[in-house]
């Protein structure tokens, strides 16, 4: 009955507005925020002409090319290249173009400097992969046309900078030359191409820059063998390391004559151990050698002798040399002293001269300086000033000028790895509402303004004031928990191993933490962050205990590297505790149990499939051992095409084990035939999803029982050819097989083959259904399919009387070993977009209807009602079905422009979308991240349980007052009239 009435109201709402997600223009920014980032900068080119805007062009590790305002750090324009299109270099050409070389020398593009329009693009087909260089000589001209030299794929190509036309091409791969460096000889058109053939032969080609003809070719040999770590010093010298990495080889090629000199590194820097590396910096007649945690700056004298100019700690960063006045070079060196950063600009020609020496105080949470780029300007007193663009360990970007940080960009947020949420602190007596809400007068004034807006009495100025008031409503950015659960903290782990807490109200950073235990150390060479999990969520002591999160990392990228665990307080952003390096971590399984301090039990699986229990307390162990007979886990080996299931056998028996380690017992395995099926995608239900009901009521009051289990796994496999990009397989070769597997017993519930379909597959699992997206080669279109599963073994629970008196087994705990009978219903539809991510809305109680959130290829988030993906759709639904909300079947899913959550914005480089339920049942919070961040609130069936924020309380008050007044007036009036009647 209730369901019927509810569905009636839902229908009513839906008929009022087809989809409840669209918004009006003035609602933008009310509940959503969008932050634009660029990522970790790897190249920077300054463009600071005397007049006009000063800007810096950067390219980043997130494949972004951007032009930043040098004054404020804002983005003038930004272009995000594809995921495989990493930038090799950027340069300025003709004073108006930004030339970028990307895809390992495969693509050369020119961007208009003021607005970022692409002017031309040239695809360079190389013959084999090689290093990639971009060279924009200033004086190399052919018919007034400046040339751009690009090396990539073993070919040197000269391209016209005006239209991108290829002028000449020279293939070096054919001569089996591994090109190491390409240099232009100063003041002439000659290009030197330096490289190795094999490991011992050094080749040098002199090429006429105007037509690509080889002028001269000379080879030379060095028996010791070259490593591939080389560097150009000045214009006529190449520095290389030998194969053992202990000898420095200098190759002087002045005038085409090759002279090889050798010098052991220990002669230069004294005792050292470990790897030696030449830093890829252009320092004029100097080079930097990194050995034994020190950087040795070695200068080359005019006679060709090597001298150590300075030895600095390896935590220092050195910039490229900047020519600033005739013949003079400036080099910036940044190093840390205590918690301050020392920026020194030195004269490249004379290392003992300091042009600038400044101390800058930089937030300790930014870590070490990674890169520095310098630029000079003329001070009012005609002396040279320098500004430095500094890239920090957390990928943030700072501009330092005159000992001050001019601006900061938090670009670490462009590489989010994982997100979790925590609640904000409960409102305490200290923080009162009135304090934040200013005073009553302001409140009243605001409402009067709003009322004016509603009654269309507002002047344009008022409208602006109203909009500003709505946008920076203090209500949404308060630091306390709210009744509706809209305000939360997003805990974000980034690639730079930094943890940020963002406020959902306005996206500001509450705290950030460069996780200490995940920083580079002797024990951990290249630590990486993996995931972040909610560790402790206090409910009983919410007033005086802080929630905490668990950050899981590894020492190295490889799976068998030791793991690192860090526990971070979610309110203060301080590391409470850390352990590591510990055993390796393959998988983290949050268990559905908590101990008395409300710490969630986690089982960490290592590469030997042993389980390690956390937290490491006796109490947790007790709880775990009590439940251990019902705990299972599985591992998906995508390489071998095997899924294995395990249970706990007992405590570990190996030597360095403790009580918290458990041996696995092999239970089952599903082996996919390797020659015909390859695992490409999997999906599981979300652990925190709440399902309201187990029954699905069909038209005519028919009943089906959903098969709801968290222990289900959706696996999609494709034939090996069809598991790559589209176009790699013909329809006959391609097939896609989907499975539903019970992860406790290993039983395959359902299997379906899609002939002529192929990867990529994106899937989402929720309640009793899976929706997946793939490409149909026969139809040349993307498709989406839905599988709904129902429990047939409960289907006979239809006797009303028995249900009324409660004589049924519907709420009895179920076991996967009871072999439930499963019925699956499925349907497929065409879908226009290719997809980057799919997720589904989650609400607090699971009553609200579901919407799919689709991250489209255009980096937007599209909301699609689940009702469109319903296997019961048919061409002519019956009256009862229509009443129930079954939509007539169409072959493709509609894309309604108003249902883009991101409206006019783009979440560049979108990687994933997550949803978090708010306390208000109708509402869910959506966070999409990629290079950009986007957050919004979504009510899939409109906010049926609350008044909207736009609701005018003043109007309501006014109406009530007016009504009361009217009642009083009419009452007096009628009294008087009655009296007159009586006198008559």
């Amino acid at each position, binding site marked *: 009955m209730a369901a019927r009435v509810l569905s009636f109201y839902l229908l009513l709402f839906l008929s009022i507005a087809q989809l409840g997600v669209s918004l009006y223009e003035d609602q933008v920014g009310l509940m959503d925020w969008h932050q634009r980032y660029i990522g970790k900068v790897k190249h920077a080119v300054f463009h600071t002409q005397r007049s006009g805007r000063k800007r810096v062009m950067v390219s980043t590790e997130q494949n972004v090319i951007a032009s930043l305002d040098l004054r404020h750090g804002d983005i003038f324009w930004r272009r995000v290249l594809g995921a495989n299109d990493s930038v090799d270099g950027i340069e300025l050409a003709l004073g108006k173009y930004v030339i970028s070389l990307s895809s390992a020398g495969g693509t050369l593009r020119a961007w208009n400097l003021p607005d970022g329009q692409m002017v031309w693009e040239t695809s360079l087909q190389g013959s084999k992969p090689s290093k990639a260089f971009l060279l924009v000589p200033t004086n190399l001209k052919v018919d007034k046309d400046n040339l751009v030299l690009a090396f990539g794929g073993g070919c040197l190509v000269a391209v016209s900078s005006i239209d991108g036309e290829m002028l000449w091409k020279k293939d070096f791969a054919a001569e089996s030359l591994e090109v190491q460096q390409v240099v232009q000889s100063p003041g002439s058109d000659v290009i030197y191409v330096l490289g190795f053939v094999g490991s011992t032969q050094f080749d040098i080609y002199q090429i006429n820059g105007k037509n690509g003809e080889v002028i001269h070719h000379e080879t030379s040999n060095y028996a010791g063998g070259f490593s591939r770590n080389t560097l150009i010093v000045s214009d006529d010298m190449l520095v290389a390391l030998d194969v053992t990495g202990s000898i420095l080889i200098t190759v002087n090629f002045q005038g085409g004559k090759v002279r090889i000199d050798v010098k052991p590194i220990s002669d230069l820097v004294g005792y050292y151990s470990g790897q030696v590396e030449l830093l890829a910096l252009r320092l004029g007649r100097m080079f930097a050698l990194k050995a034994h945690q020190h950087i040795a700056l070695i200068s080359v004298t005019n006679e060709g002798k090597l001298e150590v100019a300075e030895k600095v700690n390896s935590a220092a960063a050195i910039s490229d040399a900047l020519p600033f006045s005739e013949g003079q070079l400036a080099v910036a060196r940044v190093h840390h002293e205590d918690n301050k950063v020392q920026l020194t600009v030195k004269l490249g020609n004379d290392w003992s001269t300091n042009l600038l020496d400044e101390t800058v105080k930089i937030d300790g949470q930014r870590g070490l300086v990674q890169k520095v780029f310098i630029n000079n300007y003329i001070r009012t007193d005609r002396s040279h000033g320098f500004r430095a663009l500094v890239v920090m360990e957390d990928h943030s970007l700072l501009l330092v000028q005159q000992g001050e940080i001019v601006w900061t960009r938090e670009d670490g947020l462009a590489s989010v790895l994982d997100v979790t949420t925590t609640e904000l602190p409960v409102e305490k007596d200290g923080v009162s509402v009135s304090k934040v809400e200013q005073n009553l007068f302001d409140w009243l004034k605001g409402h009067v303004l709003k009322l004016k807006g509603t009654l269309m009495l507002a002047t344009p100025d008022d409208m602006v004031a109203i909009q500003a008031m709505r946008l920076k409503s203090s209500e949404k950015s308060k630091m306390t928990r709210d009744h509706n659960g809209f305000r939360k903290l997003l805990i974000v782990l980034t690639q730079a191993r930094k943890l940020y807490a963002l406020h959902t109200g306005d996206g500001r950073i509450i705290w950030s933490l460069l996780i200490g235990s995940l920083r580079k150390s002797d024990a951990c060479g290249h630590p990486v962050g*993996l995931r972040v999990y909610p560790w402790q969520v206090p409910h009983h002591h919410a007033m005086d205990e802080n929630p905490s999160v668990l950050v899981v990392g590894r020492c190295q990228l490889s799976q068998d590297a030791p793991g690192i665990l860090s526990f971070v307080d979610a309110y203060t952003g301080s590391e409470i505790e850390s352990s590591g390096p510990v055993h390796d971590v393959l998988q983290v399984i949050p*268990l559905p149990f908590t101990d008395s301090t409300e710490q969630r039990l986690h089982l960490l699986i290592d590469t030997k499939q042993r389980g390690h229990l956390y937290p490491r307390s006796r109490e947790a162990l007790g709880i775990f051992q009590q439940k251990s007979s019902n705990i299972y886990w599985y591992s998906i080996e995508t390489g071998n095409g095997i899924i294995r299931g395990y249970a706990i056998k007992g405590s570990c028996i190996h030597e360095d084990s403790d009580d918290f380690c458990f041996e696995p017992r092999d239970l089952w395995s599903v082996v996919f035939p390797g020659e015909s099926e390859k695992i490409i995608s999997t999906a599981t239900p979300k652990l925190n999803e709440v399902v309201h009901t*187990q029954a699905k009521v069909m038209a005519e009051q028919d009943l089906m029982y959903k098969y709801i289990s968290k222990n289900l796994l959706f696996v999609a496999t494709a034939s090996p050819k069809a598991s790559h990009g589209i176009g790699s397989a013909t329809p006959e070769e391609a097939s896609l097989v989907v499975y539903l597997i019970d992860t406790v017993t290993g039983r395959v519930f359902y299997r379906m083959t899609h002939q002529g379909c192929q990867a990529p597959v994106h899937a989402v699992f929720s309640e009793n259904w899976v929706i997946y997206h793939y490409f149909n080669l026969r139809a040349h279109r993307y498709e989406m399919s839905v599988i709904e599963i129902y429990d047939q073994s409960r289907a006979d629970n239809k006797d009303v009387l028995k249900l009324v008196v409660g004589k049924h087994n519907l709420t009895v705990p*179920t076991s996967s070993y009871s072999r439930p009978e499963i019925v699956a219903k499925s349907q497929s539809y065409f879908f226009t977009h290719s997809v980057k991510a799919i997720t589904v809305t989650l609400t607090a109680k699971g009553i609200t209807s579901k919407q799919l959130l689709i991250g489209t290829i255009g980096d937007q988030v599209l909301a699609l009602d689940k009702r469109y993906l319903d296997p019961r759709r048919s061409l002519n639904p019956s009256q009862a079905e229509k009443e129930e909300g079954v939509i007539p079947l169409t072959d493709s899913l509609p894309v309604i422009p108003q249902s883009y959550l991101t409206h006019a914005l783009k979440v560049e480089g979108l990687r994933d979308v997550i949803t978090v339920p708010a306390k208000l049942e109708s509402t869910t919070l959506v966070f999409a991240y990629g290079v950009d961040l986007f957050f919004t609130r979504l009510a899939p069936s409109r906010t049926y349980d609350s008044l909207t924020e736009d609701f005018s309380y003043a109007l309501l008050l006014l109406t009530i007052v007016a009504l009361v007044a009217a009642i009083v007036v009419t009452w007096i009036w009628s009294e008087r009239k009655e009296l007159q009647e009586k006198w008559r």
Partner: protein
Amino acid sequence: MEKGKAVVGFGRRWAVEFTDSSAALSARDIPDPPGFSRASQDQDDSSVSRQKKDAEVNWKTQKAWEVAQAPFKNLMMMGFMMWMAGSTVHLFSIGITFSALWQPISALQGVGKVFEPYKDGKVELLGPKLLFIALNLGGLALGIWKLNTLGLLPTNASDWVSSLPPAQEVEYSGGGIPLY
């Protein structure tokens, strides 16, 4: 009803008797007009009042039956309205259904009051009352039937199951593709 009673009880406050029964003998010479029966003249006062009473009882009984049958008309009208309202849930059909439920209930509550005027030691009211109750119950049944056709009665299994949370699972399983 009050008015009717006044007429019945005090309708004849005074009367002019044109015939004098004491002078009957002197008038004997004149034959009675044809069709005149002296027997009627012989009725005594008590018999006259009893006759009056009988008429009253008859009349009351008849009225009571009429009142008892009144809901039938109502029932028919309700049925027609329900048919017009259709079987989908909207404001009109809900209003009609609830009025169809409310009317019989309020009528049943006031059964005593409805038959108050006809209350008399001699008037047999049980029959009309029973009929009245039965008809109203019929109306109520019609209302409930309508409620059911609207789907607002929890007579289906779905109504009892839709709020049942999913059963808990005994086992717990986790895992997946190794973290990278």
